[in-house]
């Protein structure tokens, strides 16, 4: 094996430009696959991090009637906050949120929204709820930048909202936008208005009630509470993971095609080599190789393309990928377009397992495509190969 590697290396280096063209094409595959995978890993981490800090904390209790995908359930999705959570809420480790459906009338237009009530004093989530405590005598509201842009609202604007209270009676009031926040999490931004919890409880005639209870510590063993459904952190981020998995499959198709193109070049080189290097194959046999050993030599030679590609890829890939991980990649899209947390700038994350795994996959694939045409050598008649007479 050591000898085969030595000879294969000599042959590859000796082949010059033909080798380097294959190596460079294959190294592109290496770097692009790692870069693309790194973006997905970075996206996954960023999405979870942002969701954690802006929306889900360490997990949530949902009112048993609450279904975030069905706005019509909101009218029934509320209940008094269970007393057993009071210490946690007072310690700032749990935040009750009351949610109802409503309508906003910006510049005479009408748009359905979710009205969410949250304590201005909370610090568990990154929402700037302290801005809800700045306007005595009126109803302060904070909204996300996507909501503000969509409705042409600015800080200081007054706008009418309408809602239905616990008795089913419609009511309306003017709210004042006291803060506009920017977030990558559309589920706290798009078509949503955040009000002080007590104001909303009063508007809806639901004092002391909430729809969702977000807690900080995900490690604590949570108890079941009647009328409330425990949603673990893992369950809450499962949508993100599913989305990343879907994207990953789509991306796999892309880099499989990329890898196949590179492997095709190596396969082509191998087929051409076996045809053009018949005399050399015959010579190896005459000098003492068995035909199977020559197959091994050619396979190692083909597979070594992947080794050289890894080295070449590392030379330009490591600085490039490091730079990308520091400066990020602007995707030119908004989280609102995706429906879940996606940053304007994505910071790829490259793990050791990603690099090693990709290297092994490419090495294995290259070995297979190198071995495949090389099997033909085993059927060659060495005396004809020596004279280069095999067609």
């Amino acid at each position, binding site marked *: 094996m050591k*000898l085969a590697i*030595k*000879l294969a290396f*000599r*042959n590859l*280096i*000796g*082949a*010059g430009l033909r080798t380097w063209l294959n190596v460079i094409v294959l190294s592109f595959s290496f770097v692009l696959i790692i870069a693309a995978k790194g973006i997905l890993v970075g996206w996954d981490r960023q999405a979870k991090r942002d969701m954690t800090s802006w929306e889900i904390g360490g997990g949530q209790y949902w009112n048993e009637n609450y279904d975030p995908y069905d706005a019509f359930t909101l009218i029934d999705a509320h209940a008094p906050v269970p007393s057993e959570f009071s210490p946690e809420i007072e310690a700032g480790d749990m935040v009750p949120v009351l949610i109802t459906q409503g309508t906003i009338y910006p510049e005479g237009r009408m748009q359905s929204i979710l009205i969410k009530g949250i304590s201005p004093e909370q610090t568990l989530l990154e929402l700037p709820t302290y801005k809800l405590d700045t306007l005595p005598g009126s109803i302060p509201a904070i909204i996300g930048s996507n909501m503000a842009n969509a409705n042409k609202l600015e800080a200081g604007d007054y706008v009418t909202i309408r809602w239905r209270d616990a008795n089913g009676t419609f009511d309306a009031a003017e709210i004042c936008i006291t803060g506009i926040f920017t977030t990558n999490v559309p589920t706290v931004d798009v078509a949503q208005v955040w009000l002080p919890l007590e104001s909303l409880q009063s508007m809806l005639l639901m004092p002391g009630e909430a729809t969702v209870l977000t807690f900080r510590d995900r490690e604590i063993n949570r108890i079941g509470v009647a009328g409330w459904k425990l949603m673990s952190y893992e369950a809450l981020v499962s949508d993100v993971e599913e989305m990343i998995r879907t994207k990953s499959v789509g991306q796999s198709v892309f880099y499989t095609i990329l890898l196949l193109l590179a492997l095709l070049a190596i396969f082509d080189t191998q087929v051409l080599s076996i045809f053009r290097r018949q*005399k*050399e194959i*015959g*010579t190896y*046999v*005459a*000098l*003492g*190789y*068995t*035909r*199977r*050993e020559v197959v091994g030599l050619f396979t190692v030679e083909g597979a070594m393309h992947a080794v050289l590609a890894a080295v070449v890829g590392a030379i330009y890939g490591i600085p490039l990928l490091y730079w990308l991980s520091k400066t990020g990649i602007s995707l030119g899209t908004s989280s609102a377009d995706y429906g879940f947390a996606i940053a304007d700038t994505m910071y790829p994350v490259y793990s050791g397992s990603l690099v090693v795994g990709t290297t092994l996959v490419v090495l294995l694939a290259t070995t297979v495509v190198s071995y495949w045409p090389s099997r033909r050598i085993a059927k060659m*008649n*060495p*005396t004809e190969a*020596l004279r280069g007479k095999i067609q």
Partner: protein
Amino acid sequence: MENNFIIQTEKLTKRFPMGKGEFTALKGIDLGLGTGEFTGLVGPSGSGKTTLLNIIGSLDTPSEGKVIVLDHSIGSLTAKEAARLRKEQLGFIFQSYNLLAVHTVYENVEFPLLLLGFPAGERRKMVMDALEWVGLTDKVKQKPPQLSGGECQRVAIARAMVKKPSIVIADEPTANLDAANSHNILQTMVRLNSELKTTFLFATHDEKVISYLKRKIYLLDGKVDKDEIVSN
């Protein structure tokens, strides 16, 4: 069979499939070659010279009869055993040199020693000795495409001789060379034959080679037509 022959054939027949029938290239060859011979298989194209060399060189097998090379029965060797025989005991010189084009002169000559697993230091000495025999110590770093035909064949001789094999098989070694180079190559081989007692077996129809042979085995239509020992 007698034991003083290092190559011996008995009723050697070789047939090749041709269309729906068969072509018989060798028809019951009986031969015996001893140590240190400088012998040629002489005959026109199609007389069976190369086929006989290939079988003796364990690159091919007989259809019938016996071929014993250095106490190995060629017909019954496995691929691995045949490869070991070639690697350890036989050297080959080809008409078109068959050098490894991307390797340097040094690497080409070193190749058989790598296969035999010689340590680096010993390898280097043996390669330089072999290159000295053929007068190419100044070309170690050059590659075959940068050499003349005569130089390429000298590299091929060095490669065949570097491991000091018992037998060197040379198939039309001067066919691609001019007269001056041919004589130079042949004189080198004569010298090595005399100094190292290596048995040389040629296949040739080149008069220049024939003039150097100490024994001429004439083949015609797959049979030994004449076996002539040249007296000094």
